[in-house]
C-alpha cells in the first residue's frame, strides 16, 4: 500500500507545470507536495531531508534535471531516492542518458494524468511498498 502522506518534490522551471503536476498528485491522493524551480533549488531542499520522491523536468536554468539526478545518485544520503523525469526532451539519446544516470521513470510531455499515475505506481511497485 502506497503511503499517500509521503513528501514529494516537484521540480520544474515553469510554474504552470508545477501546478499541474501538484494538482494531479492531489487528485491521486498525495497531499504533501513541495516545489522547486530548478535543480539547484531542488538539491538544497532535498538536502534538508524528508523527501521520498522527486518528479523533475530536464531543461531548467542553473542546474538541469540530468545533472541534478547525477548529483542525487552521487550523494550518500540521497542516492536511493526515486526520481521520475517528466520532460519535453524526446530524443532516444535523452532517454538513454536519463536511464543510465539512474532515473526511475521517464514521462514525455505532453503527458496524461493516466500516464503519470501508471509511472508512479510502477515506481512504488519496484520499491516494494
Amino acid at each position, binding site marked *: 500500500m502506497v503511503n499517500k502522506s509521503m513528501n514529494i518534490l516537484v521540480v*520544474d522551471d*515553469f510554474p*504552470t*507545470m508545477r501546478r*499541474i503536476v501538484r*494538482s*494531479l498528485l492531489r*487528485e491521486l491522493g498525495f497531499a504533501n507536495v513541495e516545489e522547486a524551480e530548478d535543480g539547484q533549488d531542488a538539491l538544497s531542499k532535498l538536502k534538508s531531508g524528508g523527501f521520498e520522491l522527486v518528479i523533475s523536468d*530536464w*531543461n531548467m536554468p542553473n542546474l*538541469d534535471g*540530468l545533472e541534478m539526478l547525477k548529483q542525487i545518485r552521487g550523494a550518500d544520503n540521497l542516492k536511493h531516492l526515486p526520481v521520475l523525469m517528466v520532460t*519535453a*526532451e*524526446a*530524443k*532516444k*539519446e*535523452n*532517454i*538513454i*542518458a536519463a*536511464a543510465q544516470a539512474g532515473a526511475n521513470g*521517464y*514521462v*514525455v*510531455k*505532453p*503527458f*496524461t*494524468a493516466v*500516464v503519470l499515475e501508471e509511472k508512479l505506481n510502477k515506481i512504488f511497485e519496484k520499491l516494494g511498498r
Partner: protein
Amino acid sequence: MSGKVLKVPVQTQTPASNDDVVQRIGNLVRMLRDSMRELGLDKEVEKAAKAIPDARDRLSYIGTMTEQAAERALNAIDRAQPLQSELSSRATGLEQRWQDWFEKPVELAQARELALDTREYLAAVPGLTESTNKELLEIMMAQDFQDLTGQVIKKMIDVVRGLEFQLLQVLLDNVPDGGGRGDLQRRVDELKGAEVRREASLLNGPQIKAGEPDVINSQDQVDDLLADLGF
C-alpha cells in the same frame, strides 16, 4: 549604411543620365558584395538566413499548440456546462415541489413520491459532479501548452538575438569611425555573450516537427525503449 564607406567613383560632374545611374548602382552592388565576401560577412548573413525556416517552424508549433489548448479547454467547458445545468434545474424543481408540499401537506402519496424523486436525485449527484471534475482536470491539463510553448519561445528569443547579432555585425563592419559606431559596438558586445552560449545537444526542448530521426513520438515508444534497455 553610410555612403562614406562605399565610395563609388564619380565619373562625371554633369547630371547623370539613366545609363550612368544604372552603372553606379551596379558598381555599388558589386563593391558591397566584394566587401562582404572579404569580411566573411556573406557567411554570417547566410547563417542568419538559415535560422529563419527553423524559426518559422517554431512559430507555427506555438500557433498549433495554443490553438489546441484553447479548443481542449472550450470543449471541456461545453461538456461540463450541461451537467451543471442539470444539477441546478433538478434541484430547483425538487425544492419547489417540497415548498408546495410544506405549504399544503395533504396527500401522503405525493410526499412519498417526492421523497423517492429526491433520493434519486441525491444518488445522481456524485456521478454528475465527478464528470464535472473530470472536465475541470481536462481544462487544467490543457494548460500544459504553456510549458511547451514557453520553452520554444525561449529558443525563439535566442534565434532573434542571434539574427540581431549578425545584422549588427554587418552594419558595424560597414560604418565609419564616429557616427553611430560606438552605439553599434555596445549593442554587439551586449549580444556577444548570448551568441557564444550554445545549447548542449541533450537540451532540445519539445519536438516541433513529427517524424524527426531518433525522436520518440509517444510515451509507448519511451516505454518500449526503456524495456529494451532493461529498465
